[in-house]
C-alpha cells in the first residue's frame, strides 16, 4: 500500500507539460540501433534517453521498435545528448569513442529532422565460476567482484568494481551484462562490501573467507586479468578460499585532560576502502566499551586506525561555530589478536587563517561558495599518509567579512590543504607561517604558528582549440587533457574535456602556470592520472604557458592511447 504525495504549485509550473499546438516544435531525431559488427537490428528492447544539453530535468526516454528503430519528435532547436541502454548491450552515449566514455551532443536546428542515425551497440559478456573451500565443498553466499585498476577524480588509484554477485548454494556465481574488457576477479568477505540482506542468510551459517584474486592470490600483483569477450561467457573462473580468521583488538582510552578514562567516548575502527580510496568505518563492528576498556571483535586482518573522540564539555551547539573535540588515534596492523592498545585523548589546537584576493583585498565570502557567511564549503586539511585517517579531523570555522577564519580540532601532523568546488577562481598562494602549503604539506607541530594565509584569484586563463585525427580531419569525442608540468599530485590542476561534433574544445578557468596539452583518440575515464601513461605520452604533449587572463587557441593531433 503506497500513498504518495506531491505538491504541484505555481513554483513547479515550469515542470508541467507545455502543450498547445502553437508551441509545438517540429524538430526530430530518428535512428536505428544495430548490433556491433553487423547491420542487424539489436534483439530485444533498448531504452533510448534524450538529454537536452541545457537542462537537467527535461530528460525523456523511449524504447526501440521491433526493427531497432527509435524516434524523438517535437524537439526544439538545441544540443541534445543521446544515451542507449538495453539488457545484454553496453550502455553507451552517442558519439563516444570508448566503452563507458563520454559522447558528443547532437546539434539540432529549428524544425530540423535528423534521420538515419546508426548506433552500433556492443554485446556484453559474462563471467561465471565456482567458489569452493580446500576440500572442494561449494561455498554459498560469497561475494564475488569484477575489478579494474582505475583512478578516481582525485587522481587516486583505486580498484573499481564493474560488477558483482553472490555464489548460490552450489558455490556458483554468474556476473552478467559485463562491459567487454579485462578484469580482476576477487571472491571473499570484503569489509567494505556489506552483506546483502537476504532471505537465505537468515537461516544460514555465515562464515568469513579471506578475499582472493583469480587464479589464487591474496595480492592483486599476483592476480591474472580475465578477458571478457563481447557476447560470450567466460566460464570456469573458479577460486578456492580459506576460512578467514577473525581477531579482536583490546585496549583502553585515557583522557589526558582529566587523567581518567572517559565515561563515554566515540570509538571507531577506520579502514581504507580500496574501491573508493576513501576511509570507512560504518561497516566495522561497534566495540564493547566499559570504564575505559574497549574491545573490537570479529576484525579481519588488515591495516586500521583506532580513532576516538569526545566533545569538549560546556560548548554551545550553534550552527556558526565548530564543536571542539578531544581526539586520539592509534594505527594498528591486525594479523593476530591485539591487546594493550592505549588511545590517549588530547585537547586539540586551532590556528588562525585569512583568505584574501590577489591585491590583498578581502576576498568576497562567496569564494567559499557561501553568499553571506557560513562554513567554508570544500576547504579542507586532509592528513597526509597512506593509512586510514582518524574520524575527527580539522574543521574550518565560519568566515568573517574580512576573510578571517579559524581551523579547529588540529593535532600535530602533516596535512594537505585544498578547496573543493572552486570553479571560476583558483588558489594562487597558500602559506602557513610563510611556508608554501599549496604544493607541499602543511606541518603542524602542536602549538600555533601561522597564520594560514590564502590568496585566491579569478584571473584565470583559457585555451580553445581543435583536435585533428592523423588524417588531419577534425575529430569528435577526442579526449583533451591539460596536465600541469609540476605538482602533478594536485589533481585539480588537471583539466579534461571532450571535443564536440566539430572537433572543437574549450578549457575555461585555468590557473596560470606551465602545462602540457594532450589529445588522445580515446581514454578510460580519469585514465590521464596514470603516471605511466603520462610518461609514455610526454613527448606528444604540447607545452603551453597560461598567463593571468590569457586566451589562446591551439590545434593538436590526437594520438592513440599507449597500450
Amino acid at each position, binding site marked *: 500500500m503506497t*500513498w504518495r504525495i506531491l505538491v*504541484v504549485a505555481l513554483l513547479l509550473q515550469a515542470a508541467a507539460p507545455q*502543450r498547445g499546438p502553437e508551441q509545438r516544435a517540429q524538430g526530430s531525431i530518428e535512428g536505428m540501433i544495430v548490433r556491433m559488427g553487423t547491420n542487424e537490428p539489436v534483439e530485444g528492447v533498448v*531504452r533510448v534517453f534524450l538529454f537536452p544539453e541545457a537542462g537537467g530535468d527535461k530528460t525523456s526516454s523511449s524504447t526501440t521498435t521491433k526493427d531497432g528503430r527509435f524516434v524523438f519528435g517535437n524537439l526544439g532547436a538545441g544540443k541534445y545528448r543521446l544515451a542507449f541502454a538495453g*539488457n545484454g548491450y553496453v550502455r553507451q552515449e552517442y558519439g563516444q569513442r570508448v566503452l563507458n566514455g563520454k559522447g558528443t551532443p547532437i546539434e539540432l536546428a529549428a524544425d530540423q529532422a535528423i534521420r538515419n542515425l546508426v548506433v552500433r551497440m556492443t554485446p556484453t559478456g559474462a563471467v561465471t565460476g565456482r567458489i569452493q573451500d580446500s576440500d572442494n565443498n561449494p561455498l554459498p553466499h560469497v561475494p564475488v567482484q569484477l575489478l579494474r585498476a582505475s583512478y578516481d577524480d582525485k587522481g587516486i588509484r583505486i580498484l573499481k568494481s*564493474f560488477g558483482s554477485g553472490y555464489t548460490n548454494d552450489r558455490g556458483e556465481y554468474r556476473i552478467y551484462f559485463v562491459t567487454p574488457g579485462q578484469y580482476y576477479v576477487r571472491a571473499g568477505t570484503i569489509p567494505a562490501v556489506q552483506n546483502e540482506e537476504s532471505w537465505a542468510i537468515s537461516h544460514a551459517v555465515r562464515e568469513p573467507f579471506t578475499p582472493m584474486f583469480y587464479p589464487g592470490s591474496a595480492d592483486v600483483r599476483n592476480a591474472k586479468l580475465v578477458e571478457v569477450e563481447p557476447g560470450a561467457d567466460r566460464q570456469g573462473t573458479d577460486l578456492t578460499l580459506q576460512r578467514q580468521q577473525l581477531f579482536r583488538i583490546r585496549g583502553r582510552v585515557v583522557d589526558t585532560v582529566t587523567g581518567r578514562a572517559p565515561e563515554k567516548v566515540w570509538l571507531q575502527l577506520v579502514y581504507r576502502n580500496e574501491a573508493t580510496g576513501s576511509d570507512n568505518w560504518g561497516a566495522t563492528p561497534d566495540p564493547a566499551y566499559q570504564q575505559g576498556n574497549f574491545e573490537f571483535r570479529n576484525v579481519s586482518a588488515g591495516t586500521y586506525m583506532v580513532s576516538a573522540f569526545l566533545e569538549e564539555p560546556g560548548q554551545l551547539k550553534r550552527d556558526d561555530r565548530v564543536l571542539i573535540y578531544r581526539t586520539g588515534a592509534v594505527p594498528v596492523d591486525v594479523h593476530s589478536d591485539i591487546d594493550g592498545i592505549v588511545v590517549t585523548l588530547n585537547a586539540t589546537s586551532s590556528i588562525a587563517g585569512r583568505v584574501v584576493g590577489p591585491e590583498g583585498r578581502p576576498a568576497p565570502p562567496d569564494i567559499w561558495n557561501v553568499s553571506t557567511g557560513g562554513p567554508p564549503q570544500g576547504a579542507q586539511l586532509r592528513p597526509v599518509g597512506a593509512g586510514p585517517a582518524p574520524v575527527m579531523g580539522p574543521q574550518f570555522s565560519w568566515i568573517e567579512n574580512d576573510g578571517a577564519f579559524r581551523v579547529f580540532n588540529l593535532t600535530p601532523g602533516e596535512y594537505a590543504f585544498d578547496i573543493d568546488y572552486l570553479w571560476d577562481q583558483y588558489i594562487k598562494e597558500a602559506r602557513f607561517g610563510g611556508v608554501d602549503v599549496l604544493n607541499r604539506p602543511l606541518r603542524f607541530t602542536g602549538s600555533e604558528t601561522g597564520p594560514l594565509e590564502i590568496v585566491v584569484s579569478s584571473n584565470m586563463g583559457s585555451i580553445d582549440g581543435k583536435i585533428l585525427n592523423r588524417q588531419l580531419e577534425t575529430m569528435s569525442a577526442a579526449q583533451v587533457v591539460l596536465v600541469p608540468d609540476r605538482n602533478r599530485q594536485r589533481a585539480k590542476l588537471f583539466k579534461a574535456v571532450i571535443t564536440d561534433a566539430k572537433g572543437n574544445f574549450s578549457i575555461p578557468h585555468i590557473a596560470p602556470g606551465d602545462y602540457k596539452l594532450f589529445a588522445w583518440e580515446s581514454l578510460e575515464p580519469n585514465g590521464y592520472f596514470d603516471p605511466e601513461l603520462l610518461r609514455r605520452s610526454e613527448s606528444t604533449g604540447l607545452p603551453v604557458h597560461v598567463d593571468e587572463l590569457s586566451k589562446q587557441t591551439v590545434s593538436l593531433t590526437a594520438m592513440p592511447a599507449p597500450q
Partner: protein
Amino acid sequence: MRRRTILAVMLLSLPTSVYPQQQPVQFSIQGTILVETTNQPVAGAQVSLSKDGPSPPQFAPVLSDERGRFVFKDLDEGTYRLGALKNGYVRGYPEDATILRADRPTADRTIRLTAAATLSGHVLDASGKPVADVPVELLRRTYTQNGRSFQAAARVMTNDLGEYRLYWITPGTYYLAAGSREARTSRSYEAWALDEDLLDRRNSVPMEYGYRYFPGVTDIDKATMLDLQPGSLRSDVDFTVAAVQLYRVRGHLIDSRTNQPPKGVNFSWYGGGNPSYDPKTGTFEFTNCPPGDLGFDLEYDSLRAFWSVVIGNADVEGIALRLEPTPVVTGRIQVEGTLPADRLQRIRVQAGRAQTRRNGVTYGASSVEVAADGTFTMDDLLSTEGYRITLSGMPSGFYLKEARLGGSDAVRNYVRAPRSTDLQIVISSRTARVRGVVTDDVQKSKSGIEVALIPDARDRKELFRSLVTDKDGRFTFAGIVPGDYKLFAFDELERGAYFDPEVLAQFDDRGKPVHLAESADESIDLQAILAGSAR
C-alpha cells in the same frame, strides 16, 4: 588490606573444605544431529547453546563431528536451550529446554534437521526469450484482519539467462510469483539513466513486468500451489511474464468558488503514475500509470476533491473534477460509565473512507484530537465521500457505542457529510463477557483449540476476537462490544484463516449464535469443529 584478602580466600574455599571428599560436579550437554527422515548423522552442523536467566554467559558454537555428535563441557547448573544450523537444512532445535541440576548434571539430546527444498526455473517473455533482473518471490499464505495475505518467504532476481534459483527453503506449501508488485514508472528510468554511480548495473535497463503467479496467471486463485517436500529439488518451474503497458489519465479541475482552474494543487495518490498540473489550462495528468487502481485526493486552499479509477488497457481522458469546500464537522464524546477527568484527551476520532484497495487497506483516513471536555472539530472530510467512525486510544473496558454523523449511524455504515454538521459519539463501559468450555465429540474437554468470536457484521473486522483454550478447555472473552455474534471452536485451522470470508463460509452453519446485551455475562459451551485442511 591484607586481612581482607585472606578473608576472601577463605570464603571462596569454603565449599570445597566443607565437602572435601566429594568430586566437583561436571555439568555438560552432549548430543547428536540427525537428518529428520533418514536418521543419518549430520556432520559440520553449527550447534549453539544459550542459557536462560539475566546476563547469561556467551557460549561459542561448536560443530558436530562425522557421527553428528557434539558436546558442551564446563557448564553449570541451569536451564539451557540448543539450536542447530546447517546450510541446506531448516534450523532445528528441541522443543523443550535442557535442565542441568546437581542430581542430573549431564544430558544427551538429539536434534533432527529437516532437509530444505530447492526450486529453480526460468522466467520468459511472451516470445520465449529470457527475462533478466525480474524479481521472483516465493509466497506463503497468512491471514490478517484484512483477510488472506501473501508474504514473501524468499525473493531472488533472475539473471541474464532468465534463471532463478531459490534454495534452503523451509518445506511447505507456497505460491510462486514473478514481476513487480508495484510498477515503477518511466520517470525512474530517467533518474536511473542520470545516475553515474550504478557501475554494477550500468549495462542493464530497468523493465517492468506485471505480477504473475505460477504458471502465469494474474489471479492467485487460479495459481498452482507448490508443495515443497523436505530435500526436494524442482528445477523445471518456468513461467512467462509480460511487460507492463503504461497509460495516461487526464482531466480538468475547477475551483468551485471561482469556476476557474485552481492556481495550484496538492496530489495525494495511491497506485502508479506521475501527476502534473498546468494551472493555466486547469489540466491535470497522470502519466505512466500501470493497469490497476489509481485513486487521488486533490487539495487546494481548503478545497478538496477525490477520484478513483481502475485502469484497464486504455488511457483515461476527460475527467472533470470540482474542488469543493470541506464541511466542518463538530462533535462531542459522551461517556456512559466513569472515566478520569483528563482521559478523553487521549482519544483520537478517526474517519475512514469506504474505498479500499484489493488488499483491504484503507487510505486517506482523517483523524483528529479530542479536547478535555470531549469536543472536537474535523474540517478535512470530503463532502462527496462516505465515512465510518472509529476511535483510537480508547480507555480499557470501553467501547464505541454510537457515532451519529448528521444523525446517521456512522459506526456501522459509511455516512456522507455534504455540508457542515455534527458528530455525536457515545462510549460506554457496559461491555459484555462470554465464556465456556470446548469439548470434542465424546464430550472430553479440549485444550489448545482456537476459539473465534465473530460478529454478524462481518465487515467490522475490529470486532473479531480469538483465543486458545486453556489446559481445561476453557475460554473467556471479556470487554466485548455488545451485539450479535457467532462462536466457533476450530481444531487444526490455520491461524487467522477465519478472516477469509470463503474459509468462514465453510463453517458458518456450525458456529453457535450468541446475543450479547450490554453488561451481559453469557456462558456457552462449544464442540470443536475439525477444520483440517480447509483452504
